[in-house]
């Protein structure tokens, strides 16, 4: 009887904690959804379920004349996608060489990458800012993409090299004996086998620019070139509160698709992270 009672108490307490946590997690999310339907620009009269729900804020951000939101959305997608494509290409080439060839400078190259991945490249933001100004790459998406791609290389090269090292060398050696050239081995043998890690690297290199604020805010000056992170911050910070409901609509439109994507790919994402080992 005592055992049963103990179990009951334990489970009740557990459910209570879980319920409280769930409320803490869900409440902010519901609140912002509610705010996005709230009439008017200010939040003083806002409730989670607005009395006169309106789609006005969604209409506003979809209207190019009233808001740059759609441009920011497009910019973010464009920058993240391009960063992803270039990073994956460069990282595959570099990781493959480091994994399969023994050449002069290989060891010091790997060591350099190891040290570089420890210091985030935005730490050198003064230099990036000054250099971008000098090279006229400031306020261009090209400059931003270059900085993102460069910053992604060291860590992801290590990640991918680790995976390529596990693909047996006998495979490419036998292909070499059969007369396959360097490029052929790379494209037709190694890359197809490396698909899982390519997916992980692609995901990382897409997410990082999407969520980045510091570099984008240093490099981008004009409003129509902003990415979502900079644009939304601008919307909130300018006159705090006066545009909050519009901001809420904007963030719902980012959070919902990404959350759905994330939850459906969650399994692969998590296994990739644990396989890759270190990076959080």
């Amino acid at each position: 009887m005592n055992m049963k009672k103990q179990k009951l108490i334990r489970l009740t307490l557990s459910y209570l904690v879980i319920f409280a946590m769930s409320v803490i997690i869900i409440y902010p999310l519901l609140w912002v959804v509610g705010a996005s339907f709230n009439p008017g620009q200010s939040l003083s009269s806002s409730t989670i379920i607005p009395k006169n729900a309106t789609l006005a804020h969604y209409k506003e951000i979809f209207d190019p004349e009233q808001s740059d939101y759609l441009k920011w959305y497009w910019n973010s997608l464009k920058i993240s996608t391009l960063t992803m494509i270039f990073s994956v290409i460069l990282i595959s080439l570099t990781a493959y060489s480091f994994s399969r060839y023994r050449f002069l400078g290989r060891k010091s190259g790997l060591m350099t990458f190891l040290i570089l991945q420890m210091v985030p490249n935005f730490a050198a933001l003064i230099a990036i800012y000054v250099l971008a100004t000098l090279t006229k790459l400031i306020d261009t998406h090209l400059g931003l993409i270059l900085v993102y791609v460069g910053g992604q290389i060291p860590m992801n090269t290590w990640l991918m090299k680790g995976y390529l090292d596990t693909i047996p060398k006998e495979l490419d050696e036998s292909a070499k004996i059969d007369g396959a050239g360097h490029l052929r081995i790379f494209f037709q043998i190694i890359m197809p086998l490396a698909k899982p890690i390519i997916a992980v690297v692609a995901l990382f290199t897409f997410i990082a620019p999407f969520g980045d604020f510091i570099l984008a805010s240093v490099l981008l000056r004009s409003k129509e070139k902003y990415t979502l992170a900079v644009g939304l911050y601008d919307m909130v910070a300018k006159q705090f509160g006066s545009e909050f409901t519009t901001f809420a609509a904007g963030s719902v439109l980012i959070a919902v698709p990404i959350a759905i994507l994330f939850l459906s790919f969650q399994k692969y994402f998590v296994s990739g992270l644990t396989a890759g080992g270190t990076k959080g």
Partner: protein
Amino acid sequence: METIYQSNHRKIAAVLSVIPGFGQLYNRQYVKGILFFILAASFFVIFGDLLDIGLWGIVTLGTQVPRDHSIFLLVQGILSLIVIVFGLGFFAFNLYDAYKNGQKRDLGLRLNTLREQYRTLVDSGFPYLMISPGFILLVFVVIFPIIFVVLLAFTNYDLYHSPPAKLVDWVGFQNFVELVNLDLWRKTFINVLAWTIVWTFGATTLQIALGIFLAILVNQKDLKGKAIIRTIFILPWAVPAFVSILIFSGMFNESFGVINKTILAAFGIDSIPWMTDPFWTKVALILIQSWIGFPFIFTMTTGVLQAIPDELYEAATVDGATAWQKFTKITLPLVLYAVAPILITQYTFNFNNFNIIYLFNSGGPAVSGQNAGATDILISWIYRLTMTSAQYSKAAAITLLLSLFVMTVALWQFRKTKSFKEEDMM
């Protein structure tokens, strides 16, 4: 046993190669020799001016206003240094090549024909060819900025020494000395560093503890609805962090935020100055980071827990272990062992977690007597110095300190991991 050479071709070839190509010509590799010589000559023709201006510029940083732009000169100087490193690399290879082929002749071996030379060039050059695009980009957008910051830390580049109107000068360790000696800087530096450390340990430890605790809680065998609970608990991770932070900065807002207006009011608690009081801003930041950060740890721990075999617990039960003993002797050690490497990256991540500090309250509230906000961590202080007060050289000095610090911690950590010691890692 020492090899006995019949002749001295290797030494002569190496000495002759001081002028690139001549050693190869001596070895009767005419095409290669001419190619090397042309390469070396064009190096000086193409980069001559840059090296001339760059080396002069990096030493003097300019002597006349408005003719000389110190920062341009510094950039050209770094470029020259990089070019020189590549040039030296080529030069060393040229010496090595002449010596090696000379040695072959000394031993009476046949040298490679032109066709064979071409083949080995393609074969041994292939990895370099593949690395070069990534490496060149890395040099310009990562390594170049790092060298630039390191050098900038030893100049007086700020609002008052700003080209083209003024020149920038080398000042040695003055920036570092001022960080320690000038009251304003010392006070700010100590405060920012202290909060950075408190923040890193406080926020990270809380999010880790919460994640592990909840994972163990949800993993209880007789608990129903695990799937739905886990989905809910992962939601904060699924929403982009910058969106969550901005939402929270609205919720914590003192004039319209729901936390003061609705939640605290419902419990009859007075409004709390979340944005204007340093203490409460810090509390809010740590709470928010726990909200954002725990799902990651939660997910990792859940994975580990599911991999622990049931037999372990059954055996413990047979031996008469209590639930608490099972927890402290089996569950916790296994979990901590498995997630330890991830935990350390969590600490370094929060150490540089610029987004939450800046997006929540821009590092504020402002504090009198120091030039950083009350919640500024090192990285956001650097941002503030660069973007709002143009204190470039001080920002560079702080960046240098921050990088050294991070690198020391990371290297110390890496040395302890197994993979670092493995032979074939390199």
